[in-house]
């Protein structure tokens, strides 16, 4: 048996619906026999009548509704059709969900699933990675699972957490990533994972870019370099300790993210390592992000827009020579 990243997300939701009466799923096209634009809820409406509900194209109201339901004791999961459309719901996510516990002492346990990241031909409005925006605001937890196992266990944990969680699932990984079976154990949120051990350079990454980084590590191994790959798993909280410990071993740091370059997760990691681990560094820390333009449609442009294994390898080699 093998299970994809997407199936793991569906299975996690099935388990959540089965185990917890407070859980319901709300989103465009998630219900009926359709089961969502990416089929992440396929079959669930039938298995759990009345609990997997089609919502109108009203992202702001979908999240507002989830907030109200959470205040009243439910554990809603909101599926955005694409992460990009969560911009419509920014107000509810940032200003309502994110402030609610701080202001009123009443937590808002909602989970917002964002089908994120680029795939060929998706263009400017169906490709975005928005984790940095959500991580910037207080009161939210931001998860970026890179493996089938994490996709499953982190979604279950997201719903269990009493605070709002933005769960960024990568669309490219949906079908490309497979595991033999669903995991029975999980690593707690807020703990990064060493995806590959090494001693010459640390590449810090998350979500789909972890796999590009692993490909680079493999490639550079044949050139005699040992690259350590850190998978952040959640970008907020950010596991600075694991990153620092890795940099202490390697002395070199490259951060790779798929989102836009200004600010963001990669800048945050470098700022923290610069402030707390400056003495550990043998070379100036570097980062790679997508280009500072909207995400292009054409595959030729798209593959040049985001960091890929070739670009990362080039950057890594330069950093290893320093």
């Amino acid at each position, binding site marked *: 048996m093998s299970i994809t990243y997407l199936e793991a997300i569906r299975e996690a939701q099935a388990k959540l619906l089965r185990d917890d009466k407070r859980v319901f799923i709300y989103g465009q096209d998630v219900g009926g026999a359709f089961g969502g634009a990416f089929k992440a809820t396929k079959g669930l409406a039938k298995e759990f009548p009345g609990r997997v509900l089609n*919502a109108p194209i*009203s992202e702001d109201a979908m999240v*507002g509704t989830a907030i109200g339901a959470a*205040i009243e004791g439910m554990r809603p999961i909101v599926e955005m059709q694409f992460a990009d459309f969560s911009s419509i719901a920014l*107000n509810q996510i940032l200003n309502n969900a*994110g402030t609610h516990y701080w202001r009123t002492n009443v937590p808002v346990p909602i989970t917002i699933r964002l089908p994120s990241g680029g795939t060929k031909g998706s263009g400017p409005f169906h490709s975005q990675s928005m984790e940095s925006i959500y991580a910037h605001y*207080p009161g939210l937890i931001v998860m970026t699972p890179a493996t089938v196992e994490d996709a499953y266990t982190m979604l279950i944990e997201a719903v269990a957490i009493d605070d709002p969680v933005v769960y960024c699932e990568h669309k490219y990984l949906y079908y490309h990533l497979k595991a033999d079976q669903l995991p029975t154990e999980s690593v707690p949120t807020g703990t990064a994972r060493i995806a590959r051990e090494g001693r010459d350079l640390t590449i810090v990454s998350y979500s789909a870019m972890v796999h590009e980084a692993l490909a680079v590590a493999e490639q550079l191994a044949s050139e005699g370099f040992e690259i350590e790959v850190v998978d952040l798993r959640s970008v907020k909280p950010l596991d600075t*300790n694991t990153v620092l410990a890795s940099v202490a071993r390697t002395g070199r740091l490259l951060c790779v993210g798929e989102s836009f370059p200004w600010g963001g997760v990669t800048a945050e990691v470098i700022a923290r390592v610069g402030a707390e681990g400056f003495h550990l560094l043998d070379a100036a820390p570097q980062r790679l992000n997508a280009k500072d333009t909207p995400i292009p449609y054409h595959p030729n442009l798209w593959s040049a827009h985001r960091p890929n294994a070739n670009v990362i390898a080039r950057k890594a080699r330069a950093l290893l020579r320093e």
Partner: protein
Amino acid sequence: MLQTAQRQSKTKKPAPPHERFLEAFRWMLLTRTLEEKLVSLYRGGLITGGVYIGKGQEAVSAACGLFLQKGDIFAPLIRDQAGRSAFGEPLLDVTRTYLGSRQGPMRGRDGNIHRGRPQDNQLAMVSHLGAMISVTVGALMAKRFKGEKDFIGLACIGEGGMQTGAFHEGMNIAAVEQVPLVIVATNNHYAYSTPNDREFACHDLVDRAIGYGFEGYNLDGTDLSGCLEVIGGAVKRARAGRPPQLIVASVLRLSGHGEHDDASYVTEEMKRQPFARDCLKVAEQTIADLKLADADTLAAWRKEAAAKVDEAIATAQKEAPPEGDKEDWCALSTRDLVDQLETID
């Protein structure tokens, strides 16, 4: 005696119209008294931030709070002190929040009208207008999921807030989900300084109801009897399973947008309109005309309201403010998931 009034509002048996009228009147009176005090504290420099009052809107607002029962959801907005009080918000919540006491429900973390007790079904508004409609819808959906019975939600909005995208989405989703919701929109003819003709171009805002699948009613918000009848009717219909209800009440905002605002843009012509009447004076006139209460009783009520307000202010003023170095700077309830980032110490 106000406590008695509060308890009455929570019982299901409808009070006789006169009793209900007087009960509502007393919440209006309490609100006017409280807000006049808040204004004078503001003028004296004793309140940090703004003061936003509901002068001229007390009748509409009181009627909103009065018909809600225990278990109902209330989403008040800027000018709903009367409704908040009638729904059961303690006066101390108001004074503590305005005066920045550490002991208020917002503990100095939020101020003035941005307060509530979500755990007691009093939703805490965010500034962003229109945002609380869908939140109310969600709370009602949760009650339905949980199998609760006989509950409704009531959300307030101004005619300005009605023009947001969030309000549109909220109306639509309420009707799609068929939740027992009453939206009370008060057209006080201004959104801050902007008059109606720069806010919307439809003939009558209530016409929008049908477009969403709501039932809509207009209301002269200066007339307490009408407010009780129309809002009470809408609440009853929502409770009986009718579609969501939209009420559009017409009044004039009899204050600035906030106390920092002299409202010099409000035209003399506007002030001569029938909707510019002061609902409290109109209600007093009704009481006199129908001999519902004598002058001594009214005077006693006034005195009692003033005493309660003074006490709530004095208490909050004696309380300690929050302090930066003692504050729990944590926006998550899940402590072990707090980001380790070192912030200013």
